[in-house]
């Protein structure tokens, strides 16, 4: 669809937008063809996204994984009550769910920001 039968060549001043878009195709091709430059750029994006995933993942592990440990180390907490309901039921039955959703929402924003920055980098260079 994007392949035209005959390609027209625009003759432009090097400082115009048309000239920059020709350069853009170059870096884009580096990324798609996995040249040394492309591999390095993708690696930087991958590491940024992995760092984000690890932050969220470790956070999950510590907070959620810590709940059974907390109950193990502090037996009185197992029977503690807030407003007539036991702490365990409130935590696992209700409070975790909004916490999970907010974490996911924050992650999606951060991951999209990483990608937008990467696209800007590719388009500008």
């Amino acid at each position, binding site marked *: 669809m994007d392949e035209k039968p005959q390609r027209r060549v625009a003759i432009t001043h090097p400082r115009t937008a048309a000239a920059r878009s020709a350069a853009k195709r170059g870096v884009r091709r580096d990324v798609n063809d996995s040249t040394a430059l492309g591999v390095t750029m*993708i690696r930087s994006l991958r590491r940024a996204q992995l760092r984000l995933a690890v932050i969220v993942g470790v956070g999950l592990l510590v907070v959620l994984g810590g709940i059974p440990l907390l109950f193990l180390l502090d037996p009185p907490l197992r029977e503690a009550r807030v407003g007539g309901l036991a702490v365990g039921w409130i935590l696992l039955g209700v409070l975790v769910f909004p916490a999970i959703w907010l974490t996911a929402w924050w992650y999606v924003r951060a991951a999209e920001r990483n990608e937008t920055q990467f696209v800007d980098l590719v388009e500008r260079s």
Partner: protein
Amino acid sequence: MTSWWPLLAILGVVGATFAIGLFGVRVSRTTSDFLVASRSVSPTLNASAIGGEYLSAASFLGIAGLVLSYGVDMLWFPVGYTVGYLVLLILVAAPLRRSGAYTLPDFAEMRTRSRRVRYASSILVVLIGWLYLLPQLQGAGITLRALTGAPVWAGAVVVAVVVGITVATGGMRSITVVQAFQYWLKLFAIALPAVLLVAAWYRDGTPVFTEGGWGDPLSGYGEREYPLYTTYSIVLATFLGTMGLPHVLVRFYTNPDGRAARRTVLAVLALLSVFYLFPPVFGALGRIYTPELAGTDAADTVVLVLPSVVFDGWLGDALSALVAAGAFAAFLSTASGLCVSVAGVLSQDLLRHEGRLGDGVSRFRLGTAIAIAVPFLLALVAGRANLAQTVTLAFAVAASTFCPLLVLGIWWPRLTEKGALAGLLVGGGAALAAVVAVLAAGPFTGVVGALLGQPAAWTVPLAFATSVLVSLRTGDRSQRLVSDAAMARLHGPEEIQARRA
């Protein structure tokens, strides 16, 4: 329980499933329509469909039954089923959509360029699918028995036939609409009775059951041994297993791009979070109003039985009908999704070289028949554990096989063909051995019972370690080139990707 209302409600759900499914036939004509709805499903519809597909017999009936029998520690099941989607979001959602793969075997081949890894994945998809279909059919059996006294095989027959026909005739496009409808039906069917039950509980002066540490974490109530190990093993299996479930992943290919895949997961998380507030209510109130079910085979029926115990007359009948409809929606939607995935893999990979089986669509139909017939026969002979526990075994196998493949495949360029294969074989072999032992000769007691009943805590690390160690010993230059190309495709945003036909 001699009322006709629940039976009529079940007939209504079955009828609606057929009607929407048959309507979908008119637009399902190509193989791509059948497998991924030609990637043309809107995000809201897709999220409802994912919710509808994911909330199975385990969620609708099993959680309440477990809470009734074993108390607060069982809340880790709904929490884990939800967090599984969050883990899927942060580790695989967008890259997996960008991989352009239709199925898990497609991803395996795209990442490793290996037919062997593809076939190993295909076989595992089929096995996990069958393991997950088994409790859906068993759930249908006990539901129909609880409501009408019919023999247990009757409910399994109903679900197997309806699913087989809808999937074989409409494929993915028609079940997308069916499943979206079934999410909202399930939510309504569990939320309304739950709210009324809580109101009745207030009317009765909020009685509380505290005996023997049932309401306390880590008490091991109901003769559960090693509650801490079991809790962590459930956490690991559900957190990491969701991403490896065949019917969950196939849904991501119906998103237009990687960002849409992430946003769809966000919507799914909201839908799941709302739903999971309600099943524990039935478990907790069942402890007060129907204590005789606790710890028995019938615990899974507490959601079905409780409304008619608490409410008399027409209200009890109507609510029983509603939960029966919701339960059948759960069996049908999950079983349809699994059946499509298993049939897709069977027809694409395992029946591929049988030229005389005809074109893609007729192979898909044959695949459908095999996909539903095997778990149906299993349901007739297998012994029955709790629904949510059987489902968690499927999660454990998925977490021990596809989780390492996906996570290492997406984030670790040094994963090799041999590393991927070794991880699948060792992780899958260990987890499946535990599952077969439990289903055939279990339940076991003591340390062995804990290790085999909830194997994820040792099989998942084993699979990861195997994959990493073998990859480190087998990496070479050609593998590096395959990885570089795969990484650009998995992580590069769509705006900068070369257009692919």
